[in-house]
């Protein structure tokens, strides 16, 4: 194996990659622009929806000002605007009010029952429901407290103890939960997309442009040519991963919405050590993606055909990546053998700061083996006349 030849093929392919508009869009533009834009849009949308919901959540339906006067007074004190409606349930369903309050008699006990109507599919209604519950709880306590004053009992018996939940997760861990869960999926998906165009261009594209024959007639061996092509495709995939991670880290750290996001989720921006380790983790997967895509795209006789072969592969790759996003899954040595899933899971655990070294070594080693198998399969296909000269 003459590595100088593979290096020449690699150099030529990279030159072509950097001059191909389609590849540059998927490899550079999407991670650099789309990720911060998406982050900004989601954040902006969520905060505007939150504000909108908060405003909308202040309307509460009642049957009349004379009905439940004390409750209405408490709701007013909590900032609600009571709106008189004849059919309270329908008013909530039709979004005329965020929630509604009505007093009925309990059929079994005969006691007064306060119904709070809410629509759980609406954020504003959920918020209103919570606020109404708080206001009514306060009214209930105030009422009991007033009764107690006459009886001579101490008010303290109302609150024998209070509860407070304390989050033991560090800000880094919180960051890992939010950042790591989605990141593995996004990185894998974009990496496969970033590798797709170069893989097609170097195989089916070369067949279509009829540039392969001259290379095959040179002293370069098929193994050396494939190695150069896979290395170039893997580089494109890795650059996509690097830019994706970099731009996500930038968005979380420096974008105008970063402070709001960090405050909302109580998390610290991702640290550089975790980012660097995540990048090392994706290297074998970049080679697996490149080998797989080069091998499959070799069967296509045109760029268009190559696209139709590789698009389902990107979707298939997304499946184990989605499984990796599921909460509660831990990377055992056995699960560490599942390609793609293992990388997503490792990325999540790296950002959580609690990955197992054994699982990491197993996953990394397994992915290296898959990469080597991918290379040998691609090299074998590249030696097939019927594949190369399929017309």
């Amino acid at each position, binding site marked *: 194996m003459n590595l100088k030849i593979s290096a020449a093929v690699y150099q030529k392919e990279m030159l072509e990659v950097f001059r191909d508009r389609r590849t540059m869009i998927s490899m550079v533009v999407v991670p650099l622009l789309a990720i911060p834009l998406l982050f900004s849009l989601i954040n902006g949308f969520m905060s505007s929806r939150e504000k909108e919901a908060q405003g909308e959540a202040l309307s509460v339906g009642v049957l009349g000002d004379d009905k439940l006067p004390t409750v209405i007074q408490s709701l007013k004190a909590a900032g609600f605007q009571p709106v008189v409606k004849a059919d309270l349930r329908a008013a909530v369903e039709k979004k005329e009010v965020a929630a509604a309050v009505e007093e009925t008699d309990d059929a079994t006990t005969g006691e007064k029952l306060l119904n709070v109507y809410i629509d759980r599919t609406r954020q504003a209604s959920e918020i209103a429901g919570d606020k109404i519950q708080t206001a009514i709880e306060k009214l209930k306590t105030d009422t009991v407290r007033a009764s107690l004053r006459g009886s001579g009992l101490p008010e303290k018996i109302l609150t024998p103890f209070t509860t407070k939940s304390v989050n033991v997760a560090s800000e880094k861990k919180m960051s890992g939960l939010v950042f790591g869960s989605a990141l593995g999926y996004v990185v894998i998906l974009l990496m496969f997309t970033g590798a797709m165009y170069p893989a097609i261009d170097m195989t089916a594209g070369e067949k279509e442009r009829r540039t392969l024959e001259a290379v095959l007639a040179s002293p370069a*061996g098929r193994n050396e040519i494939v190695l150069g092509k896979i290395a170039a495709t893997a580089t494109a995939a890795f650059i996509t991963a690097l830019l994706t991670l970099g731009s996500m880290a930038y968005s979380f750290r420096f974008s105008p919405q970063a402070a709001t996001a960090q405050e909302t989720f109580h998390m610290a921006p991702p640290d550089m050590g975790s980012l660097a380790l995540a990048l090392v983790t994706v290297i074998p997967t970049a080679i697996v993606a490149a080998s797989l895509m080069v091998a499959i795209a070799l069967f296509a006789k045109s760029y268009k055909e190559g696209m139709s072969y590789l698009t389902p592969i990107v979707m298939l790759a997304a499946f184990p990546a989605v499984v990796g996003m599921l909460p509660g899954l831990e990377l055992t040595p056995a699960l560490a053998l599942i390609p793609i899933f293992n990388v997503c899971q490792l990325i999540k655990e790296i950002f959580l700061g609690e990955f197992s070294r054994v699982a990491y070594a197993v996953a990394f080693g397994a992915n290296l083996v898959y990469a080597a198998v991918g290379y040998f399969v691609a090299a074998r296909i590249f030696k097939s006349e019927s594949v190369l000269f399929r017309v």
Partner: protein
Amino acid sequence: MIHVDRLAKSFHDKKRGIVHALEHVSFDVKPREIFGLLGPNGAGKTTCLRLLATILKPTDGTAEVGGADILKSPEAVRRQIGFLSGDMGIPARLTPREVLSFFGKLNGLEGDRLRLRIDEMVETFEMAEFAHTKTDKLSTGMKQKVAIARTVLHDPPILILDEPSSGLDVPTARLIENYMLRAKESGKCILFSTHVMEEAEYLCDRIGVVHQGKLRALGTMQELRELTGKHRLREIFLDLLEIGQRAEGART
């Protein structure tokens, strides 16, 4: 330099079944000789050249190129040849200098030696004006100059050229013809295919006519004239095709 011994190639086609692209063809090409392979489209010329360049493997027979067997030592064969494919095959996003640099490296050239050879090729094939322009912006003639320069850059002793003057204007075709004649004078062995009869008549020391995968005739212009009783190569060629058709008809 080239010894072709009963070389054959068949492949399976979904619609046509087994196709015999080349049927036990034998010929030799010596150093300081230009050998022309003529034949209509689909005759088997390109298959023959691809087999000799070790891009395809024969189904029967073999050949030696520069003393190396195409089956046993394909890489040794490829080290001695310059192969020009019929489709030119120039990477569209590279400049001619980048194309030459890439193929030079594939052929083991590097450093100053590579740079000097590239400069030489740019001068020989009059490419200075467009040497830094991406090849997708070049005309057919310019691209063909790049393709020929790429083929001969490493100064191989054997040239295998598939339709080197296809689609070229007269001045560019003449530039390439003159290069082939100079290469022959310097001792190279040149095997090429063409559809241009005048070019074959002007350049070739010997001519082989291939039709339906078979070598119908082989010899110098004088020998072919004696064989057919015709004078111009165009008439000789058509006559040989007709004889071939009749022979096939009688066989079936």
